[in-house]
């Protein structure tokens, strides 16, 4: 293989690799859904609250946070 062929093949390979770059399509920021709406799959969802109910989600957050409080888990 000549040097010229090698250079051409390398240039073509690099050009093709460039096609894998993802295009920048979004122009404006998308709006986000609320966490209390729940996840699309319930496989990993914690029990004790109801999706769509903001009050139950907030209570779940407070209850869950107490898992980090050893003084509420065991008497010192």
């Amino acid at each position, binding site marked *: 293989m000549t040097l010229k062929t090698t250079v051409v093949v390398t240039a073509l390979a690099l050009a093709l690799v460039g096609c894998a770059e993802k295009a920048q399509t979004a122009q404006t920021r998308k709006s986000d859904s609320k966490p209390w*709406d729940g996840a699309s799959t319930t496989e990993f*969802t914690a029990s004790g609250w109801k999706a769509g109910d903001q009050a139950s989600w907030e209570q779940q957050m407070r209850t869950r946070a107490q898992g980090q409080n050893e003084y509420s888990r065991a008497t010192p």
Partner: protein
Amino acid sequence: MARMKFICDAERCIECNGCVTACKAEHDVPWGVNRRRVVTLNDGVPGEKSISVACMHCSDAPCMAVCPVDCFYRTDEGVVLHDKDVCIGCGYCSYACPFGAPQFPTNGTFGLRGKMDKCTFCAGGPEANGSDAEYEKYGRNRLAEGKLPACAEMCSTKALLGGDGDVVADIFRTRVLQRGKGSEVWGWGTAYGKPTGTKS
């Protein structure tokens, strides 16, 4: 309404990097990107202090202020998130952030600096909650699953607390009042009890 915050207790952090590992595993974070890391002051010197640092989800976030394409937004829970489809990877947020939270993976085809990646407080991004698209770009959305951030929930010494700012502040306050300060916090007496015949 909750306002999500992290608190790290420097008296408890043992620099195990469990939070870092939990974050990387939970969100499948690529090599070279650390959404969370442990910083140690006076490393190797008796009395060294460690603290786990990530995005602090600032109330007046400088990253939001400097972003030229306005890709950041703050949720009702006070979590600062961004839209990777809008981010251009310029790095301004990296210069503005006092905590070094914004990370830039080299995930382009030619290894160029990619779109910014940072701690999401396990709240995903603007894609549908729990969707594959959200996981690919931002990782798991634990808040939508009724959970708190993985780093805080699995911290072995509970040095890192995460959740509603008022709740975690109460937990931290209770702890500090219980344990006292100075030599009462750690040392021989705390580990093995006071010598007999002395007043506590």
